[in-house]
């Protein structure tokens, strides 16, 4: 999230799209209810009328997979009705930049598209720059080649009628949403967009988020209290696990993982030149990379061996989840570790992923329960044990309160957990398991002469001599040391690229500034102003609670409005002050060069309306999902041209003739993710004990299905049984004059636990977003019939 949970109370309007926080992040409604009490409005945009919609002031339905038209229409509405915050847009975004002729857009395709590679040549989308590399600007925003005019032209195609014909949203509901939310463009008002997997799990997932950013920038909502874009993360430490680089494509702290396919990455110097922008805070990247290498390889990382850079693996493929399981399915993988994860229920096309597990020689599952993934070989999973030769090691793991450690919530607050009780039975914390495994491997590889073993042997691994690792040493290693003095670093500002500092994760550096002062353990809950609670735990980066809060002040450094002030320039003290840690260079006056660079991470200190870094275009464009019941009205490009399509058995595609119904998946409040952590609890299994599918009354009548009937839902990839939940909260959509039905189902259920049921993810496809490869769970085609 750019802001945080308590800050939601300051919003004048919360646009909740692609999410159901009342059900899946319930406590957020503690603060949204406070916002409503202060006169704030809640807008719920969702394919069905959810518990969030019940609390909302305005509700609008939309067909799954049409977020871009919906928000594109709002962008168009905001521009046409002059509701944008002009000065904010001119000063803090690249709206005024001039785009070179190389960029063009025709019939759904941007310039530079290579049909065979299904990829764009992004060098076509370039900003005009002066000789000294400064961007050419037209602050009147009149120039037709200005980002603003190109964007305006792009979204002029998203007029209300076209949009509502694609999304199926009743027109007056749509206009009510536009009017309510776009009113937050006014100075003194702030609107926030809250989203979750309903936004991201599409083939256009990244662009869905991008278009929210564009709307929020036009309305001047980023950096303001009650503003920002708030991604509601689903797991307690998914923010932390992403920060710490458990993704193939980046090391800890979002540093790009070296690739064998990029010639520059061959050497550390080449890697650093390629990956480090000239201006903006990322220009300090070499300090972060070298410090990381020092943390991993310690004394084995020296200036003359590129600080151990060559020890890092360099991959040459996209190793993301879908491709990982595709490789496994083709028998290219031998071993797998499953740390507290359950893809046989949570993975896309789960039936195929279960089959793929059978091709492994060995698998290690570490979890609190016998999960469906650890038991994929059992008859209960529909497998024949005798035919599966995978060796499975299932290790009992400790629960969250049976161990200590810190986790980072969705709003980047790094909070500490203390140990309440010894682990149950022989369960052990994951930290101990990883540590002991590492020690055993170190012993096996000890004094091996082979060069292949050098990278592992040089890995620095000393976390105390005790039987269990000293978690405090791990924390300090993450924070980082000044290696000359051995002292803990105070801030990532002190990081050096000469190997004299170390830090396991630069964005967290500063959370452990002194011995015995782990800021994530802070429990001072006094409100330090505007509910930012600066003395409660630690928020990365540098304890900032509202990111981009420089944008809450106008170019001269004074808050746009008294009500929405966060930081402002104090000429007397010559520094930025306010109720949050400035997300800005603390002592750079607004008048100095770069003084208005509110988005200091970016090259020119401005936010990107035109973002040439995305794989599928600098502006979000609507494309239909992989499986869609209707042709794309906006262009002849049916599917996102930049997505990777896997052919064949691993990802069967369903046509609209055989599968006319739009299907989507979601969560219920009483269960969580793959259900292992809730379906093994009796009180939660009692509340939500049965797998169900929600459908409209009209659709049920058409198919002769009554409420509580047992039904079968089928897609090109599988079939599941469930109860029919016939409801008024789903209505058929009128898409371009054609009636389109949609159904939805929870995806928590599996064959283990107290509450069992069929796994919805047997239906979802193996295709992902063009940039992140996140699977398109939220829109696929299926059919429904009675089970008898």
């Amino acid at each position, binding site marked *: 999230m750019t802001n945080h*949970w308590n800050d939601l109370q300051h919003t004048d309007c919360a646009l909740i799209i692609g999410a159901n926080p009342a059900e899946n992040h319930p406590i957020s409604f503690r603060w949204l209810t406070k916002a409503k009490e202060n006169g704030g409005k809640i807008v719920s945009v969702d394919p069905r009328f959810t518990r969030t919609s019940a609390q909302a002031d305005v509700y609008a339905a939309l067909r799954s997979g049409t977020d871009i038209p919906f928000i594109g229409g709002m962008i168009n509405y905001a521009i046409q009705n002059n509701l944008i915050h002009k000065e904010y847009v001119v000063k803090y975004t690249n709206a005024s930049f001039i785009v070179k002729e190389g960029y063009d857009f025709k019939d759904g395709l941007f310039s530079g598209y290579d049909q065979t590679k299904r990829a764009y040549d992004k060098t076509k989308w370039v900003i005009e720059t002066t000789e000294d590399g400064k961007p050419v600007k037209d602050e009147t925003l009149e120039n037709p080649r200005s980002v603003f005019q190109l964007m305006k032209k792009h979204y002029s195609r998203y007029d209300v009628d076209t949009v509502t014909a694609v999304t199926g949203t009743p027109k007056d509901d749509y206009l009510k949403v536009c009017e309510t939310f776009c009113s937050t463009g006014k100075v003194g008002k702030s609107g926030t967009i809250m989203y979750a997997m309903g936004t991201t799990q599409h083939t256009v997932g990244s662009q869905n988020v991008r278009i929210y950013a564009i709307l929020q920038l036009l309305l001047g909502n980023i950096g303001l209290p009650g503003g920002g874009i708030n991604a509601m993360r689903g797991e307690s430490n998914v923010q932390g696990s992403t920060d710490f680089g458990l993704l193939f494509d980046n090391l*800890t702290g979002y540093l790009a993982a070296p690739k064998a396919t990029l010639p520059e990455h061959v050497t550390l110097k080449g890697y650093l030149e390629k990956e480090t922008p000239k201006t903006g805070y990322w220009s300090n990247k070499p300090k972060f990379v070298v410090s990381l290498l020092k943390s991993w390889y310690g004394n084995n990382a020296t200036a003359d061996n590129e600080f151990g850079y060559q020890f890092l693996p360099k991959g040459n493929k996209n190793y993301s989840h879908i491709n990982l399981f595709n490789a496994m399915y083709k028998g290219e993988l031998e*071993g797998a570790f499953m740390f507290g994860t359950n893809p046989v229920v949570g993975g896309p096309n789960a039936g195929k992923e279960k089959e793929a597990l059978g091709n492994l020689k060995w698998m290690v599952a570490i979890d609190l329960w016998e999960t469906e993934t650890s038991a994929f070989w059992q008859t209960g999973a529909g497998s024949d*044990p005798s035919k*599966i030769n995978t060796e499975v*090691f299932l290790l009992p793991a400790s629960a*969250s309160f049976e161990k200590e450690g810190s*986790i980072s919530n969705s709003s980047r607050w790094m909070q500490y957990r203390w140990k309440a009780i010894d682990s149950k039975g022989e369960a052990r914390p994951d930290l101990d398991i990883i540590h002991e495994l590492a020690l055993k491997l170190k012993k096996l590889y000890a004094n091996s002469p082979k060069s292949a073993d050098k990278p592992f042997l040089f890995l620095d691994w000393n976390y105390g001599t005790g039987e269990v690792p000293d978690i405090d040493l791990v924390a300090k290693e993450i924070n980082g040391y000044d290696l000359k003095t051995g002292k803990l670093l105070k801030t990532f500002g002190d990081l050096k690229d000469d190997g004299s500092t170390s830090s396991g994760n630069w964005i967290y550096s500063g959370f452990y500034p002194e011995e015995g002062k782990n800021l994530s353990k802070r429990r001072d809950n006094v409100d330090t102003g505007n509910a930012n609670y600066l003395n409660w735990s630690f928020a990365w980066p540098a304890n900032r609670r509202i990111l981009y809060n420089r944008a809450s002040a106008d170019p001269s450094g004074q808050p746009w409005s008294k009500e929405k002030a966060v930081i402002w320039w104090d000429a007397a003290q010559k520094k930025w002050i306010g109720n949050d840690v400035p997300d800005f260079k603390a002592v750079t006056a607004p008048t100095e060069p770069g003084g208005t660079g509110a988005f200091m991470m970016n090259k020119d200190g401005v936010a990107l309306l035109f973002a040439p870094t995305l794989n599928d275009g600098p502006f979000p464009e609507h494309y239909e999902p992989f499986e869609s019941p209707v042709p794309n009205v906006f262009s002849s490009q049916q599917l996102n041209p930049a997505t990777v399509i896997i052919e064949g058995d691993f990802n069967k595609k369903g046509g609209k003739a055989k599968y006319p119904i739009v299907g989507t998946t979601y969560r219920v409040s009483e269960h969580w993710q793959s259900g292992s952590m809730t379906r*093994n609890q009796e009180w939660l299994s009692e509340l939500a004990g049965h797998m169900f599918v929600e459908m409209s009354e009209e659709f049920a009548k058409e198919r002769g299905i009554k409420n509580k009937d047992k039904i079968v839902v089928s897609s090109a990839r599988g079939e599941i049984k469930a109860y029919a939940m016939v409801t008024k909260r789903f209505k058929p959509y009128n898409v371009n004059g054609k009636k389109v039905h949609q159904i939805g189902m929870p995806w928590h259920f599996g064959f283990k636990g107290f509450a069992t049921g069929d796994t919805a993810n047997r239906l979802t496809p193996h295709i992902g977003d063009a940039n992140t490869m996140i699977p398109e769970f939220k829109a696929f085609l299926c059919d429904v019939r009675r089970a008898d």
Partner: protein
Amino acid sequence: MVELNLSRRQFLKLSGATAATLAIVELGFDDKRAYAKTKEFKIAKTTVTPTICCYCGVGCGILVHTKKNEVVYTEGDPDNPINEGKLCSKGTTLRQLYTSEKRLTKPLYRAPGSSKWEEKDWGWMLDTIAKRTKDTRDASFVEVENGITVNKTEKIASLGGAALDNEETYLLAKLMRGLGITYLEHQARI
């Protein structure tokens, strides 16, 4: 142990709250054991430890009440500003993470082709896992590819875990990349 500032506990300032004895109490119980009128107040003599909920990304604070190595109650941490003592249905069930009979308490091993688990001890399990990891790595490790030092193995995958602590995710990423694993993914991707 951390000192707990429970000042903001939502006490109902009652004048003359009677002593711990409960004059008239109504309990669910499963056999006719005549409950003494003075059933000890449930969280009277418990050890209270703050933790953070293990479910969604809001990060609510929870107090775990333990007594004689049993979790007797879990409730919202009134001092955590995010939830101020409040919880949703999942957070309130945290106690059953400990009391549920379905919890794994012993390492289990499944031999190839077998249709059942066997209980094994930790030592054997981790030794065997280390051996399997080493064997697969050694057999598949690529040091140089097309003239470029790559130091990778594409035969082992590491999946998970978004519910691990920061310290755990850090060590996991360090170990797995240290071994040269490129198939390193977790739930953030799905």
